[in-house]
């Protein structure tokens, strides 16, 4: 082979010279170039190949044209869902803040209380008297709304079929009423002065779900052991692995707007490799802290469907802290404060990540512009205010060390809105500072509007643009099914305890035919999304041809 390859070009040049052609002209149009072009030299090691495969897959996801197909594509490797860390808004274990900061790459700061963040503060200095009159009117409305909410809750309790709800449910019901009433009162009072509130979309108890991958976590024992068992993988046995995280939450209320909030950190401040190294790391398995794992499809839901309407960017969300009542007293006050921080961080990150997903980004494809939101955690009486800026989504693999970008969160301590509601239904010790902070959040005008190309650089098309009706239906149906969080129609195969004892752990039935999945080395969790029987099309519909007996699938 080697000799031939040397001889061949010589022979062709010789023939051309014989034919009277010049040497120079022919080199270009022949299959041999003057300068040799070698393919890129690639690292053939196992680790490098795995990394290359992963980045190729991430590139494939980026190239998928529509948002829905991207979200399906992420789910393609698993039929029964990924094994994910259950990150929800109703369970925060002791000392959860370092883990939350690591899993969201967030730097925590204090929210400057006096200035707030919006035009409100500036205006207050400009024309004080009229502003004060406006504030007084809002204050009265808010107090009235509070009193009404408590009155209504008392009425609900007296209903004959009220039952005996737990303390957590009681707080949840009361706070839901308070938040809805306050939101109604504030929108009504402020919308004249702040025109952006006219266009706001309000979601009541929306679904906020997000899925992402986090690197830099120590491998579980079974992974370590399996690698230690292979000679060529022994060195990598303790290498950190990616953990998949699924957040599930339902805030009391969230407001959306078609424009984005102004970022409060410049790109230069957000890209700081030194700062990113200071973000706390939690290398242990999250189960050692009290988190659990489950199998679930990757879902990204910011409270609406993609292309539902124009209001695609979060303005404000009200999170519940009712489950804090279930935390033991022994956790202490400091941990309560940290739990509030971590709830704010994870809920804000997850909501923004879900919104980013609807703009074509995901945990493997980096954001091209920052996204901001505001979060309020409340139990009706006490209010904590947080602002969040999402700069990066890349947390997996090496990005944990290499990615210079970090996300930012800044917040306040819980501030009381009022002391109590007296027995005759009057609000006592109303706190103006807390209301002003809340007003600042409402008055924060979302002003950034981007062109479509800038907003969705990785989205090339929309499923409504697909000509094939069958394809459109298939994608819509599959996407909605994945987002529904319903269990699979076919349950995951199970092995019974006697099989574990007599077949798996101890080989006591060697002579029996091996028919079960675990005897044939089939791992049901490794089944991919498209490994299922296709839908049969009856003869009455398809005609006599045998070709289209099964419906086509259009997995990305």
């Amino acid at each position, binding site marked *: 082979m080697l000799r031939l390859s040397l001889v061949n070009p010589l022979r062709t040049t010789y023939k051309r010279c014989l034919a009277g052609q010049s040497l120079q002209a022919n080199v270009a149009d022949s299959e041999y170039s003057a300068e040799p072009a070698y393919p890129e030299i690639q690292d053939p090691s196992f680790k490098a190949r795995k990394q290359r495969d992963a980045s190729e897959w991430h590139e494939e996801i980026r190239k998928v044209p529509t948002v829905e197909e991207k979200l399906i594509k992420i789910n393609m490797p698993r039929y029964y869902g990924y094994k994910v860390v259950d990150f929800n808004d109703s369970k925060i274990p002791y000392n959860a803040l370092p883990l939350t900061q690591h899993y969201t790459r967030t730097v925590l700061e204090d929210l400057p209380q006096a200035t707030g963040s919006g035009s409100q503060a500036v205006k207050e200095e400009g024309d004080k008297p009229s502003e004060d009159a406006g504030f007084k009117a809002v204050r009265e409305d808010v107090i009235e709304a509070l009193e009404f909410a408590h009155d209504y809750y008392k009425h609900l309790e007296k209903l004959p079929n009220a039952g005996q709800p737990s303390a957590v449910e009681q707080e949840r019901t009361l706070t839901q009423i308070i938040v809805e009433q306050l939101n109604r009162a504030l929108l009504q009072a402020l919308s004249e002065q702040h025109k952006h509130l006219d266009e706001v979309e309000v979601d009541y108890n929306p679904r906020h779900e997000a899925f992402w991958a986090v690197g830099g976590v120590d491998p579980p024992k079974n992974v370590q052991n399996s690698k230690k068992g292979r000679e060529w993988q022994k060195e990598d046995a303790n290498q950190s692995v990616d953990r998949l995280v699924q957040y599930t939450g339902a805030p009391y209320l969230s407001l959306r707007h078609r424009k984005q909030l102004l970022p409060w950190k410049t790109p230069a401040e957000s890209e700081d490799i030194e700062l990113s190294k200071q973000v706390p790391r939690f290398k242990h398995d999250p189960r050692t802290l009290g988190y659990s794992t489950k199998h679930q499809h990757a879902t990204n839901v910011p409270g609406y469907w993609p292309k539902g309407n124009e209001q695609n960017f979060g303005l404000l969300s009200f999170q519940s802290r009712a489950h804090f009542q279930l935390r033991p007293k022994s*956790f202490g006050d400091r941990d309560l404060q940290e739990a509030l921080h971590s709830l704010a961080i994870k809920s804000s990150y997850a909501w923004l990540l879900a919104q980013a997903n609807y703009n074509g980004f995901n945990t493997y494809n980096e954001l091209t512009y920052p996204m901001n939101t505001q979060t309020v955690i409340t139990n009706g009486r006490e209010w904590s205010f947080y602002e969040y800026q999402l700069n990066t989504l890349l947390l997996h693999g090496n990005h944990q060390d290499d990615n210079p970008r970090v996300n930012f969160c800044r917040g306040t301590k819980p501030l009381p809105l009022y002391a109590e509601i007296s027995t005759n239904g009057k609000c006592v010790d109303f706190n103006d500072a807390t209301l002003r902070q809340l007003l600042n959040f409402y008055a924060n005008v979302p002003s950034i509007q981007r062109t479509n190309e800038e907003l969705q650089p990785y989205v090339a098309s929309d499923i409504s643009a697909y000509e094939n009706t069958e394809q459109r239906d298939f994608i819509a149906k599959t996407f909605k099914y994945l987002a529904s969080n319903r269990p699979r129609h076919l349950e995951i195969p199970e092995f019974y305890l006697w099989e574990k004892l007599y077949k798996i752990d101890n080989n*006591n039935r060697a002579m029996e035919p091996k028919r079960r999945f675990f005897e044939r080395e089939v791992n049901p969790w490794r089944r991919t999304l498209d490994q299922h029987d296709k839908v049969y099309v009856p003869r009455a519909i398809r005609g006599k041809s045998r070709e289209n007996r099964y419906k086509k699938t259009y997995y990305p």
Partner: protein
Amino acid sequence: MSTRWYPIYQRGNPQLRVFLPNFWMKLIRPTEEQPPNVVTFSVSMEMTKYDVRSYLEKIYKLPVVDVRTRIALGETKKDQTYGYITKKDDVKLAYVTLPREESFVFPDFFSEKAEKQAKEEKSLDDSKEGFRRFLDRNKKRPGTPGWFSI
């Protein structure tokens, strides 16, 4: 706190004087890496997480923040002669979280012992090696006493 009957008095000796409660806790080495403020115990199957907490707080005056428990399946083993399967008892494990400032390292009692043993083995090997060299040297003059050559 015990499910056992207190023994009815019988005349004569020896008397049963030691009476053990059901509740016991055994500190064990964690199999997986954990945060430094988490301590693992193997506890009596009857104990709940509230029992574990009050045991540590009341008897040992430890600041317990949180307790999580689980029951681990006992190992099974096949009999080498007859092929039947035996199973060890299940154990209840308690993961006790201490305040974040505290840290607990499982004591390493046997590292010193292992070191000592290694030292002894080394000296034994050295003397063996010396004897072998002596034999090599005296291969051609058997029966020479050790003090003979320089």
